[in-house]
């Protein structure tokens, strides 16, 4: 079962080099498709941060005054319960509201500095039966209800932005999946050619009693390396484009998109997902080839 690491590494590198054109094709396809996957994921995160307060179909927000009394809070709850157009409401207390404010205001650090949990208004986030009713319902809460600071509904542009993003993301993901499938096939074919090029060696190995894993591992590693290199290329591409976008936002002070600048944590998670997909594609392609073409 134990496969000497040095042997496997040597064989893998030799195989990759012998088959370098095929390997390059496979790696490039993986890189392009995973760049699209990464871009689609980041795009979604950026947009949802930007319009974060309106995510999850929230179409009405009722901000309370920071110093609203529990009595006033209770009254507003009752009022919400008696409004038939509202289907569901969630309540963000001072702490949660502060967290959200930090996200929304990520582009302007001075605004965040001015806030504390205690001074951040608490908010009801509500879903409506028909989002089109939002302005009417908002108006009833803005008509001098005690404790209510302001009720707002998303502007039309946010709806458009949401829809455009969804479509864009869908297109990117469809293209990415098609490319991922073709990179799987390319890796499978690259490994098949490697197996064919080494059929004499494989024959002798079987004859003298090399274990099945000993014979398989170099080929599997070859696919894994192709997937990995492609994924790393994709990670670099996505990172560079993210840096580019961030620079543009800062340079032209497009503060509206301030929230679209992603924190490191989100970026790292996305890149990990990209690398993982690359590895899975590589291993899947080479296992299929080994299963079908390596008769051990």
């Amino acid at each position, binding site marked *: 079962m*134990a496969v*000497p690491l040095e*042997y496997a590494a040597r064989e893998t590198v030799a195989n990759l080099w012998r088959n370098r054109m095929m390997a390059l094709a496979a790696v490039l396809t993986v890189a392009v498709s995973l760049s699209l996957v990464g871009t689609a994921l980041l795009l979604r995160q950026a947009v949802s941060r930007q319009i974060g307060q309106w995510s999850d179909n929230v179409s009405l927000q009722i901000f309370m005054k920071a110093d609203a009394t529990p009595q006033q809070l209770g009254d507003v709850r009752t009022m919400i319960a008696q409004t038939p157009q509202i289907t569901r409401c969630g309540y963000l207390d001072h702490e949660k509201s502060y967290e959200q404010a930090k996200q929304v205001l990520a582009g302007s650090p001075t605004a965040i500095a001015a806030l504390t949990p205690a001074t951040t208004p608490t908010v009801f986030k509500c879903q409506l039966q028909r989002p089109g009713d939002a302005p009417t319902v908002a108006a009833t809460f803005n008509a001098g209800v005690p404790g209510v600071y302001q009720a707002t509904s998303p502007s039309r542009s946010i709806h458009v932005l949401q829809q455009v993003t969804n479509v864009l993301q869908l297109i990117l993901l469809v293209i990415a999946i098609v490319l991922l499938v073709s990179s799987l096939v390319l890796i499978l074919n690259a490994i098949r050619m490697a197996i064919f090029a080494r059929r*004499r*060696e494989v*024959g*002798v*190995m*079987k*004859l*003298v*009693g*090399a*274990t*099945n894993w*000993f*014979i398989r591992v170099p080929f599997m590693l070859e696919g894994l390396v192709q997937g990995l290199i492609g994924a790393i290329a994709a990670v670099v591409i996505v990172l560079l484009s993210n840096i580019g976008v961030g620079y543009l936002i800062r340079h032209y002070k497009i503060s509206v998109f301030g929230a679209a600048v992603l924190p490191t944590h989100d970026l790292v998670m996305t890149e990990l997902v990209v690398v993982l997909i690359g590895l899975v594609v590589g291993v899947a392609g080479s296992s299929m080839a080994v299963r079908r073409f390596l008769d051990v």
Partner: protein
Amino acid sequence: MIRFENVTLSYKGGAPALEGVSLEIQKGEFVFLVGPSGSGKTTFLKLLLREEVPDSGTIWVAGRDIGALSRWRVPYLRRNLGCIFQDFRLLPNKTVAENVAFALEVIGRPRSVVTNQVAQVLELVGLGQKHERMPHELSGGEQQRVAIARAFVNRPLVLLADEPTGNLDPATSQGIMKLLDRINRTGTTVIMATHDVGIVDTMRRRVLQLEHGRIVRDQARGVYGYTDEPTISGRGMRAISLLDTSGVELSAPGLPTGRMATVRARRGER
């Protein structure tokens, strides 16, 4: 050492390649398998290697029922069985020493052991001076010696030889047989499928004769004992033409000369 109990194997849709074969081979024996092409010699060897599994019957090798071996154990069975072939099956891009070393490396032997054993076995087969040669620089006899070195370097219990002298001239064949005999004297069981009348008749070892998948003769200190007929249906042969009464030419355009039966044509017969 090796025991066949009523072993039968049919390839898909054909007559049985082996039928009801029962026999026993002791440790250290030298056994010739003879019989016309298609009589089941190669199938016999494949069964021992577990490249094929019998339809019925049991095969014991070194006290193990090899039909009951799980897949992952088959390689360990093969480490006890050395194998040589008519076409040598050397790796053309490796030197003599690398070819032999390969057999040890791929079963995970440490490098110090490999270097040691390879030098020893190459000395044994008489290629001590040719470590760094490539296979294509060697004569057929020398290539077969490399193949024997590779099969024997792991000191297997059994050496299986499928027509090892099929591609060699009589003098060279004799050298190969001397080597196999020497290996046999170290206690290694040798099972050799052959069509070489001269070799079988001079060695006088146990002879198993197969015909249509059945054992028709099992003779200690036996002889070849039958006359192969010129076959046109033999594997790898496209055409045979008898040019004159003194000689027979076998031609196989575009194919390596393979598996030529020893042909005896009597004067006057065409």
